[in-house]
């Protein structure tokens, strides 16, 4: 089960996506079903059955009455494929169709371009070492996967961080207005006793306080995908800082 925060809303350009819709998107696309969401890359559409003849154009292919409608987990994207089409070709067709309808699906690359992200730790030194047991056997693919997944969630956090609508602000305020590049968020100083919160605060408590007051939105639950992503982004940006819990 993956925890990809995948959404078909482009950053800043589309109207506010409701939290429920966003959650549904995540849940529907592998979050709750237990099946892994493969990293889909666009593949060329399946070859047509008609022979390629240079003499005359091929006869138009009328979809056979027994063609199958395949619907993607977003509930919207669908393709019609002839019976017997191999599964990988169906997946490829669906992906192409989805990308065609969602030109802002390059959200991750765009977000990284707009707002720099500190890179996750480089684990490549672990590759190829032999430790004598399976836990220590790290491959190149492992390292690449870890990096991609980790940075994706942090990038998703960056997206929420910079978007008042995603945060649920009722006054048009987003986190970056006081914290450009997550400056001055000092997650390395938590947990600490914060009198105004009446208790020892963790980073998420302070995030929620900020959402309720400077951002004037609704506090998020601790396992809200947005909260998790925000924490990931803030911690990513403070890479290398010394942990000093309790510091004021």
């Amino acid at each position, binding site marked *: 089960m993956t925890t990809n925060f995948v959404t078909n809303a482009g950053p800043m*350009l589309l109207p506010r996506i409701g939290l429920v819709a966003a959650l549904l998107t995540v849940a529907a696309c592998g979050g709750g079903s237990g099946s892994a969401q493969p990293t889909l890359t666009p593949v060329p559409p399946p070859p047509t059955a008609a022979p390629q003849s240079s003499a005359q154009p091929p006869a138009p292919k009328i979809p056979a009455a027994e063609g199958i409608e395949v619907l993607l987990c977003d509930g919207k994207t669908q393709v019609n494929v002839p019976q017997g089409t191999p599964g990988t070709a169906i997946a490829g067709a669906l992906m192409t169709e989805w990308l065609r309808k969602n030109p802002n699906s390059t959200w991750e690359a765009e977000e990284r371009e*707009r707002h720099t992200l500190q890179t996750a730790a480089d684990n490549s030194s672990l590759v190829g070492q032999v430790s004598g047991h399976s836990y220590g056997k790290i491959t190149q693919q492992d390292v690449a996967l870890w990096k991609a997944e980790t940075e994706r969630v942090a990038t998703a956090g960056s997206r929420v961080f*910079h978007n008042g609508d995603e945060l649920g602000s009722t*006054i*048009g305020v987003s986190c970056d207005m006081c914290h450009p590049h997550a400056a001055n968020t000092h997650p390395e100083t938590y947990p600490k006793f914060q009198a105004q919160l009446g208790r020892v605060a963790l980073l998420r408590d*302070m995030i929620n306080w900020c959402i309720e*007051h*400077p951002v004037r939105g609704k506090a998020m639950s601790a396992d809200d995908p947005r909260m998790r992503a925000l924490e990931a982004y803030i911690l990513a940006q403070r890479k290398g800082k010394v942990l000093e819990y309790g510091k004021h």
Partner: protein
Amino acid sequence: MSDFKKRPSVKSIETKHMEERAELFRALKSLDRRSFVKVAAAAFGAAAASGVTPHSFQPVRVAHAQGAAPAGGKRESFHFAYISDSHLLERTLNDRFVNALMRAVDDINAMDPQPDFVLYGGDLAQLGQPKELELGAQILKSVKAPIKFMVGEHDWYLDMGEKWRELFGKPLYSWDHKGVHLVVLNSVVEKDFWTARKMSPMDRMKTVAGLDNGWQSSFTVGDEGRKWLDEDLKKVPATTPVIVFSHSPLYKLYKPWNFWTDDAEQVQAILKRFQNVVVFHGHTHQLLTNRIGNIHFHGFLSTAWPWPYAPQGMPELTVQMGRPDPFDPQDGCGDGSAMIHPDGLADKVYNLWNRNPVTVSRNYTASRGAKEKPAVPNLKSY
């Protein structure tokens, strides 16, 4: 955590270029202004070709006399007030920012004696929308003293200044006041980054509105702006104090947040021949002090929110304002004023709400920090 001790000493881009620039100026010290600009331009060209552009944020030691004595002739001191960086959204959307601007207006109107004029430092609107600009104009009508307007990037990039010009006139202008020559610049000119990406006006505006948004270009005064400035200052004698109002700082502090003016050296070169120049700038929402040769720089506070201090590039002279209290939405915000001495140098007063006011005096910048240093705060920036 990487092993810092073993890594070779790597200089940041800013450090490297600061050193190069200092070297450049050491060599150019003896040249007159025109040759200086020619050589500097050539140096910039050469440097640009190698992929590296000299930056500056160190005071440059100029050979001639420091701490200029008040110029001859009888000039009287005067003071002006400022309000800056209000970032208004429509009041039905965000009442907090609107209320803060109203508080600033109240502050200025209560000043006794009244200032000679009030300067609005830019970023009146948050997203450049006509309703936001009109709201700001409406509120500022209540300011009793005469008010002058300066444009910020948040005002400009929705419609490229159409509404701004309609409400407030030309973005670049100058006037003389009690023997001092004052100039207002548009220093948020950005190279076109939006056409290639096929951005809508609002896309463009929102990109510029993000301080840390890497898609926008660096601020400049621009070729036309510098040409205008050069022309405007031609008739001004070198002994006349010059005050420059600019939204971007006119020096290079921190590029990722556009605390930066890309053609700063060229602008500074135009200003170099004057005995005393003071630049007042907006955009940075914090207490900021700098001096580069004959130019003294002071930042404006914002009424809307404070920015954190940049992780690098801080000018030596700046004594930071204490870290703002996140539980007080107006902490670190405010308005202020400046007293202009007969020699043109300024006592800059930061009227921080709910704090004691901070004064960065003429003597402090004139002595390059040796005298009258402002108190160092208890809570520092993270």
